[in-house]
């Protein structure tokens, strides 16, 4: 419990900064929706005639962006990117920071077992990403309601946030695994963030070129589509199941690897 409290306190400031950035992005994005919706009503008819590849090149995507649900679904990509960076960094740092700060001699000589140190740390991670998720949810509903005659589309947004949370868990576990396996924090954050960027670029490549579509399974950014959740109210069960089981495997590996770790002092 003490480890959990200590971690929450240590990460409070960075969590606040991340949440503020997220709220600003939602605010800035939705602020312009009104004018956008009024002026470009018939743009969708034109967009329908477009091949998918060209839409990707211009960063538009193939959804009806003149309606608030479609417009908001475009945000999902940004949320994923930001949440992934936040979660993966949290995971990588939280597991390996004691050695970096030369506190390992202190924590790991306490009369508790290693997994009793790691579990509350990971729990603090889950609570942090959950708070980040809740702030995103609240800000989204609030700003959507302002532009949608008071209707915040709570059902649709909560479905989107559920998908986002599954992704956050995945990235937290990924980061934690690298934190436990690799030698130090610097290397763990470098590898983890390299992987996030790799996933992101792969997701763009998959969009761009049909014949590479089979690679979509390799990048978590392609597991959920903002539009299917916001418009069709559907969450892909297969995607969720795959991501959650991989997450469990990563968490398991974190514990195994950390138990055998040679702690540098």
């Amino acid at each position, binding site marked *: 419990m003490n480890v959990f409290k200590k971690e929450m306190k240590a990460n409070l400031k960075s969590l606040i900064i991340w949440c503020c950035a997220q709220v600003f992005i939602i605010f*800035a*994005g939705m602020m*312009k929706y009104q004018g956008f919706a009024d002026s470009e009503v018939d743009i969708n008819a034109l967009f329908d005639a477009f091949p998918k*590849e060209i839409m990707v090149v211009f960063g538009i995507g193939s959804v009806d962006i003149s309606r608030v649900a479609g417009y908001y679904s475009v945000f999902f990509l*940004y949320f994923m990117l930001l949440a992934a*960076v936040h979660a993966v*960094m949290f995971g990588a740092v939280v597991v390996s920071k004691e050695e*970096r700060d030369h506190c390992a001699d202190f924590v790991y000589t306490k009369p508790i077992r290693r997994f009793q140190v790691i579990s509350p740390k990971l729990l603090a991670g889950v609570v942090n990403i959950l708070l980040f998720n809740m702030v995103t949810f609240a800000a989204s509903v609030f700003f959507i309601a302002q532009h949608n005659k008071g209707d915040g589309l709570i059902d649709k947004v909560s479905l989107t946030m559920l998908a986002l949370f599954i992704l956050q868990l995945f990235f937290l576990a990924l980061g934690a695994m690298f934190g436990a396996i690799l030698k130090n924090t*610097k290397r763990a954050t470098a590898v983890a963030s*390299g992987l996030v960027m790799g996933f992101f670029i792969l997701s763009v490549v998959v969009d761009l070129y049909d014949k590479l579509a089979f690679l979509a399974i390799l990048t978590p950014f392609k597991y959920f589509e903002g539009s299917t959740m916001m418009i069709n109210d559907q969450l892909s069960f297969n995607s969720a199941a795959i991501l959650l089981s991989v997450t469990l495997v990563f968490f398991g590996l974190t514990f195994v690897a950390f138990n055998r770790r040679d702690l540098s002092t």
Partner: protein
Amino acid sequence: MNILKQELRMGRKALVAWCISLIAVLSLFMLLYPSISDQLEEFQQVFQSFPIEFQQAAGVADLDLSSILSFYQFALTYVLLAGAIQAMNMGVSVISAEVREKTGDFLFVKPVSRNRVISMKILAVLVQILITNAVVFTTALILVTLLSTDSYDFKLFTLVTMSLLFLQVFFASLGFFVSVFLRRIRTVLPISMGVVIIFYIIHLLNETLKDAKLGLVSPFDYFNLSEITKNMNYDSLNLLLWFVLVGLFIFLTYTLFARKDLPSI
């Protein structure tokens, strides 16, 4: 001079890794070009059949899709993102490393002024940025020349590619400022990656929104590639803003660092 040499030696491995990944990202996208260039020409015809208002709204009015440079710009966007992270990373870590790795006690008692230490470190970062740019420029030139069937506008190619240099200098100087502004930096990557990704998302948002004020927030918008193509030059207001901000960050780095209280072991 010794400081410069030492910094370059320490950064060598990371620099090679970054250059290889930038080359990889650029090649990955550019090698897709031959397989979708036929489609791009069809899109060009589709676009020209649209009313001029719509062409302007979608930002395709002056776009020549049959030229390889339009696709090259798209590919370069991702190089810019990665390059910005690299530059910010170098900027934040180069000064803060002395405190973090407890080597400040060694360096700052040497008979050189703090200003000289900072100058050497800034110079080291600048040299690494220039090397990165030279590598990217050469790779891009080879790829574009090999893949293009027609001739292309070399001046435009240079302008577009040079935006990497400007962007990297901006993020590096922002990194210097952040590293002397914050009291102590424990992990570099979450800061640099977070800041760059947030600016990148604001830029992505603005691709759709085209808000002039929001365009001043994100440095990615200062060197908007489609604007550069249209005007065949950088925007003078943005260039001025870039110059002022970089100057301000560098100035603040010197003044803040001269008075900074450096913790010893």
